[in-house]
């Protein structure tokens, strides 16, 4: 991720509606899909954890699709290209999955506050459930560029749903996979695994996305070990620009719990500040 530290304010109008040529549209495993779009001049200035707000119909008004856009994390941002990796769950993602190379994706962004990598860090640990790894993949890439070692615990239903390669990319991250199928993703077993990795790896920070249960577990263990962390949250969005207040989540502060906008104050929040959802 070349532009990791690009400031949001570097261009005067950092956010725009982009009409991006679709280079690749392909199913990934049984339930996932990836879209790769051409985005020179954009891919280089996005931060890991940021997202785009995607129109789920052809920009020209062609394909029928839902009215609102859908928020989607940046999964790849390399070589002037952006990639999105998503679970096909409803009308919007189904319409996105129907888009074809040669078509155009309308994407508003880059949006939101991404992950922060501290100066001098050497090791991070990442915990993702399901497609939550899409959001964390650029963090692994950025860490690799800064010679920060990445270990990932990826949880999935079954090996066929894991997408370890989709996470690792060129980052060289070490992956520990756990599955529902063989029981290795059970809370107590993941806790044991994490405790072991914490003790051995001594990560400078931890990051998570994709599961409330895993977030609560990580919150507890990171608190216990005194390790800072961040979590990427999801919430349904309207404007994705901070204007409509429909994407709020309660966030813990020194002076109490406040509603904050996932699109603007997030989607990345301090791990200990997030509340269960």
């Amino acid at each position, binding site marked *: 991720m070349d532009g990791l530290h690009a400031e*949001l304010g570097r261009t005067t*109008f*950092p*956010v*725009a*509606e982009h009409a991006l040529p679709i280079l690749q549209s392909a199913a990934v495993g049984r339930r996932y899909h990836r879209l790769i779009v051409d985005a020179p001049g954009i891919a280089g200035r996005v931060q890991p954890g940021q997202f785009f707000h995607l*129109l789920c119909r052809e920009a020209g008004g062609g394909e029928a699709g*839902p*009215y*609102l*856009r859908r928020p989607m994390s940046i999964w790849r941002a390399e070589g002037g290209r952006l990639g999105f990796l998503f679970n096909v769950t409803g009308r919007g993602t189904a319409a996105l999955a129907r888009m074809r190379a040669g078509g155009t994706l309308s994407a*508003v962004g880059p949006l939101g506050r991404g992950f922060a990598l501290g100066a001098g860090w050497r090791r991070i640990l990442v915990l993702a459930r399901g497609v939550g790894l899409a959001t964390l993949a650029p963090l692994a890439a950025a860490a690799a560029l800064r010679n920060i070692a990445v270990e990932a615990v990826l949880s999935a239903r079954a090996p066929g749903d894991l997408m370890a390669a989709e996470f690792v990319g060129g980052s060289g991250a070490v992956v520990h996979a756990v599955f529902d199928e063989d029981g290795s993703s059970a809370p107590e077993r993941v806790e044991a695994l994490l405790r072991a990795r914490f003790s051995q790896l001594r990560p400078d920070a931890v990051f998570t996305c994709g599961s409330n249960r895993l977030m609560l577990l990580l919150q507890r263990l990171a608190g216990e070990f005194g390790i800072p962390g961040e979590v990427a949250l999801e*919430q*349904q969005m*309207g*404007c*994705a*620009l*901070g*204007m*409509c*207040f*429909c994407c*709020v989540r309660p966030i813990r502060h020194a002076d109490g719990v406040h*509603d904050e906008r996932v699109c*603007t104050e997030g989607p990345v929040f301090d791990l200990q500040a997030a509340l269960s959802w």
Partner: protein
Amino acid sequence: MRVGVGRLRLANPVMPASGTFGLELGQVFPLARLGALVTKSVTPEARGGNPLPRLCETSGGVLNSIGIPGKGLPAFIAGALPEWRRAAGGAALVVSVSAPTAAAFAEACATLEAAGVDAIEANISCPNLEQDGHAFAASPGPAAAAIAAMRARTRLPLWAKLSPNTGDIAAVARAVEEAGADALVVANTILGLAIDIEAARPRLGAGMGGYSGPGFKPVALRLVWQCAQAVRIPIVGCGGIATAEDAVEFMMAGAAAVQVGTATFIHPACMLDVIAGLEAFCVRRGFSRVGQLTGLALPQAELRAAAE
């Protein structure tokens, strides 16, 4: 492209609709290119907002029940207003206010006048605590009472934002004109509902919500048309506007200016396209001023023109 909304002069007739806009849109384009900026409704006191989900889409638009969360008027004036003034540049700054009683509305106007804004938009579609929670704008009496109370406390241009949730919008329009409103904003969202059939409950956390977007447009346009035939004060049209053609429809139905709401969620820069498209339409059709579109499709257009 200059137009007047009563005493207020605007560089162009396009502005955002309250609650669908914020200074954050300045990340996308220079906000001073709009005819005016309109704030999210500000309430006298801090409010939390409604349960989630607060927004859901339907085939023709969206339903919302956000609940006007905010830090309250004093915090707005101290914290946000200076930024809004800076962002507005040459554009007019319109502050939308919402309050539970006529007296609270009036008080808020006095406070805002002192703080310095260009116009006040009174969101009288909110529940009136003195009327069993019915919206002020649901009937002429309470609507007029609220506007009269505000009028007594401010000399700023005072816009009354009407609600579609009334049996006779023309009567409400006449009542608030009589009570001293300088302009009407027509209209706020119409009450709607969507049900999640798997869960057997409303899709919005709050139950019903306000319907906006393209599917609401024919109703909003009709409301403008009815109001334009009922009052002499200018009308700001609002409801489902997404394109310059939509804006022309509203102006021809009697609007002097227009507000764009939900469409900004889909195309964040669409207000600029509306401005450019309005200009292009006027050029193509030989109108030297965009204001000439106002009321062109009204039944009495000829009579009116003759009378002037």
